[in-house]
């Protein structure tokens, strides 16, 4: 009797020890983005993409460092800067070395600064900031630091690719710029004006307009002005309901040309535009899934949709974050000494999961990859929003803006 108890106790102890050992070994990645409130859809979708990518592309393939798993922890920042900094502290206290964030460049600025400060003061518990979506160019220019890596193409790179497409199209002679009245909307308009002026000064900008963000009830008057201006194409950085309201009003007003956007897909937007958006709504972004680059991609998307029927692969770059982080950890031979991991990550060239190559540029930690201009269309293989519509590649710009200058002066530890 006594012996059985002893044996049982011993076994339990051994089990618990091994269990904690396994838990401690997991490479934890803290996902700091809105999981509640008005922007929760984007956040929960991103978290699902991260968790799926970690499970499928790392854990099921044997993990990193010969058997360590990735674990993605969702932390709700309620789209608030202060809340994000608290989340960062919570993550650090839990022994997390990698944080990912993407929604809002404002929050990314707060985080990159906090991470930089923390790493300087606490060399024992340093963290890396893997930015998967905040596109303010400043983050990899004047505000860059060694601990920040951006996997999305920044706003300037996207505009560079977009304007390349516009100047090659002889049917487009007049362009109308319209956007939300805040830093990103202004940045898009400024970049468009600069790039179009430099590339082809015969393209006339017939309107440059900002509207209050989230306040416009009816976009029809703006649409009327666009039609009356005789524009051949519209460029906008709008997102959310401002994007849908503007797009629908422009199409209904009888506008026939292309509408070039940054964020007009998924989260109900593709479905709402439906037939009216087909052939009109264009989107510039990294990673196109129609046509897909390999059967592996097709399988991956099908498995994702099967597991998360309400979500889409809306941010393809997330897969590259997970894959490149795993490669960097393996190369560095450690998951806890993030300075080594960061050194492995900078300058890394890898196969882009969505086709082509991806390179993490050394001097500013900006990923250089193929950028696509895609169009909403019916009858594609991988649709969005459970509708019959999806995005299909129109033009691919290979290694977009690989030689774009940067003002980043990075201090390395």
């Amino acid at each position: 009797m006594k012996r059985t108890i002893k044996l049982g106790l011993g076994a339990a102890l051994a089990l618990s020890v091994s269990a904690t050992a396994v838990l401690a070994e997991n490479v934890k990645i803290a996902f700091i983005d809105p999981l509640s409130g008005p922007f929760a859809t984007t956040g929960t979708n991103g978290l699902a993409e991260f968790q799926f990518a970690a499970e499928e592309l790392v854990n099921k393939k044997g993990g990193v460092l010969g058997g360590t798993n990735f674990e993605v922890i969702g932390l709700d920042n309620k789209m608030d800067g202060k809340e994000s900094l608290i989340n960062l502290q919570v993550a650090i206290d839990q022994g997390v070395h990698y944080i990912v964030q993407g929604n809002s460049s404002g929050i990314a600025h707060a985080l990159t600064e906090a991470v930089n400060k923390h790493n300087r003061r606490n060399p024992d518990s340093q963290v890396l900031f893997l930015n998967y979506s905040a596109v303010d160019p400043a983050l990899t220019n004047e505000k860059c630091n060694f601990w920040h890596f951006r996997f999305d193409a920044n706003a300037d790179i996207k505009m560079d690719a977009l304007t390349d497409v516009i100047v090659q199209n002889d049917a487009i002679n007049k362009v109308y710029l319209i956007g939300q009245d805040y830093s990103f909307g202004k940045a898009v308009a400024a970049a468009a004006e600069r790039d179009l002026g430099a590339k082809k000064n015969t393209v006339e900008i017939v309107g440059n307009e900002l509207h209050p963000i989230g306040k416009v009830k009816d976009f029809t008057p703006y649409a009327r002005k666009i039609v009356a201006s005789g524009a051949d194409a519209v460029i906008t950085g709008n997102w959310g309901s401002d994007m849908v309201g503007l797009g629908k009003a422009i199409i209904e007003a009888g506008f026939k040309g292309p509408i070039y956007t940054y964020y007009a897909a998924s989260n109900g937007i593709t479905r709402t535009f439906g037939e009216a958006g087909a052939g009109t709504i264009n989107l510039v972004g990294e990673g196109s899934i129609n046509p897909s680059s390999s059967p592996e991609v097709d399988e991956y998307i099908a498995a994702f949709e099967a597991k998360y029927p309400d979500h889409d692969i809306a941010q393809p770059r997330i897969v590259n974050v997970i894959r490149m982080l795993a490669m960097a950890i393996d190369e560095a031979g450690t998951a806890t000494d993030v300075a080594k991991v960061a050194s492995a990550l900078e300058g890394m060239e890898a196969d882009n999961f969505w086709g082509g190559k991806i390179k993490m540029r050394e001097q500013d930690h900006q990923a250089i990859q193929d950028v696509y201009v895609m169009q909403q269309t019916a009858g594609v293989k991988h649709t969005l929003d459970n509708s019959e519509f999806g995005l299909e590649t129109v033009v691919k710009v290979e290694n977009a803006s690989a030689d774009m200058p940067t003002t980043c002066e990075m201090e390395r530890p």
Partner: protein
Amino acid sequence: MDLVVINLIDGLFYGLLLFMLSSGLTLIFSMMGVLNFAHASFYMLGAYFAYQISMYLGFWMGLLIAPLIVGIAGAGVERYGLRRVHQYGHVPELIFTFGLALLIEELVKFFWGNNLMAYQEPEILKFALFSVGANAVPAYKVFMIFTSIAIFVGLLYVLTRTRVGMIIQAALSYPRTVEALGHNVPLVFMGVFGVGTALAGVAGVLAGPVLGTFPGMAFVLGSIVFVTIVIGGLGSLWGALAASLLLGWLTTFAASSSFQFADLLNFFGMTRPEDMSESYLRDLWSLTLPQIGPILPYILMVLILVFRPYGLFGKRDV
């Protein structure tokens, strides 16, 4: 010229939409003396219910059934919510409707999620009826304009030409006397509240496909409806109509104008400073009218409150 004509049509459309919302609110306010913060939430409910119904029975059944459900829900809120809170005074009533607005928004998010709903206008009305210059006018908007006008005429007829209307009007001004004459005033209140919210529901059903069906739609339109009834004069149907059209045209023309405040400053003989960062007018130099268009109704409201606190057509003080 084309732009002026098309703006007149668009302004009419937007103004009539505002009217459908404000007519119900103005009646409720003048009758119960309570600002119904949840009014725009009933507008949102109308859109969501109609979307759900249109998935199974098509758009037209949605237009018919959704406002009925919203009206019944509104009457229920009055009967079992507001009437109980009423005895504690106006402030608890105000807080009650405010809480209700938050509750409805959370419920909508709970059942339908944060995403935009793909609520579409019916296929039969999906074409451009006519064009002014290059600008097309969708048939659906014209349909909306005529529906709103029909509702206004119907409402006006009921309120001024029928017995029910007379009792309502009397109950508006002298509720005690009307009660003493043997009329069931609480029932009248409940009816008015129900019809008012049903009107908001109709507005939601009609506006959902055009302005988008999403959880923030009530918030976006909520404040402007209050502005409308204050400008129009509380309790006045004609006032609500006039103010709605005024605001509709005001915001439409402001948004489509290309007026720059720099022109105004030049007119007064000022020159654009070389170094903007030093100029205390730097914001004004780069400001355009479309940028501040959505604030104009609020400025107008303040002016009305200062110079004519009764509103355009109102008889009572705010």
